[in-house]
């Protein structure tokens, strides 16, 4: 199975082109603080997570701690028992 981290990075770079022009984009970069993802971008990200990883993102889980960087996403997916989602 493709590495989860790489899958997430590819999705963010393809779906949110602003990520490629942010001066420093790494796995700790906050999507919201840097403007890589806007309000509707959060919806796209959540849809991707549910479809790609076959999980359900509960309303209570729609928080920056779970979604707002590659590192946060990997950690969050680990709590949802997604294979290979290890930090």
């Amino acid at each position: 199975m493709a590495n989860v981290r790489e899958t997430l990075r590819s999705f963010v770079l393809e779906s949110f082109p602003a990520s490629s022009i942010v001066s420093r984009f790494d796995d700790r970069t906050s999507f919201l603080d840097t403007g890589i993802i806007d309000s509707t971008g959060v919806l796209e990200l959540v849809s991707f997570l549910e479809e790609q990883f076959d999980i359900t993102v509960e309303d209570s889980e729609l928080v920056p701690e779970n979604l707002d960087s590659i590192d946060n996403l990997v950690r969050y997916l680990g709590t949802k028992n997604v294979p290979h989602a290890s930090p």
Partner: protein
Amino acid sequence: MGLAAGDVWWCVLVTAEVREEGPEVSFDVHGLNIDAESETEKICSFIEREVYAHYKRKGVVVGLSGGIDSALLACLCVRALGPSKVLGVILPERDSSPDSAKFAAEQAEALGIQYETVEITPILEVIGVYERRNAVIRELCPDFDPGADRMKIALPPDLLHSDALNVFSLIVDRAVGGRFSCRLKPAELHEIAAAQNIKQRTRMIHLYSFAERMHRIVGGTTNRTEMDQGFFVKHGDGAVDIEPLAHLYKTQVFQLARHLGVVENILKRTPSPDTWPGGVTDEEFYFRIPFDTLDQLLYAFNEGLDTIDVSKMLDLEVVQVERAYRDFQLKKSTTWHLRSLPPSLLDSDSEAG
């Protein structure tokens, strides 16, 4: 307006940041207070100058929604130009509250202005606004009965006490009892928003039709809270000739409205987009914080006040102020295009050839 002795250091902090274009405010826990009469005179001078000297037109057309902003604008225009120079236009549709047209007419009559009522439901039906929106809802809620059920979309409540991000949910209150609710996917939200926005764009068409026939301008009703956070429709209620309220936070709109005698029925109405059959407030639909607290926090954010200082001033936790600041920045940056001319290569450094 006045500050207690204990607030002096706040006065120093705030007045150093007061901008030229905004009204002078005192920022404390009682709200963003302004000198209502002085502000009225300033806005009326602006309206008169813009209509006669800048645009060289004969008056103003005001879309009267039955809400506080348009009522205030009508009051200010009458004060500035006289009632014969102001036309009110009421533009209800199927999903408008019946009170809206009634209160709008009441305000127009109180001001002694001419007003017209144009029902826009037929044109919205022809364009397919309701059909397109309802088709999305039926995909999600197959038993949805558009004739009986009441639907709306809303954001998670209570921004200050929650880290929940801005994700819209569809809410359907069934006529047969019970409530259906589900989070919207991007395509679903875009389809619903695109259909709904046609309503405000249709209103814009009618307002400009009246204005151009009468050689008048269209007055805008967007206040600062809405302008800053992008709570208006591009080329809908955002397409106007002047924006006399754009420097006033919502709570300041209320202050001026009370000062100028806006009708009581409108003063006591809870602000709402008035476009969803299910009835949703501005707070539920977009802002997620009550207006009095929202405006204080937004003012603090715009003035660059430190979150720790603001938390003490407003008796909030620092994390709550940080949540508000983050949301303000997100909404402001997402809606940049509502406050700008379209980007182009038309500047002095970009000549073609």
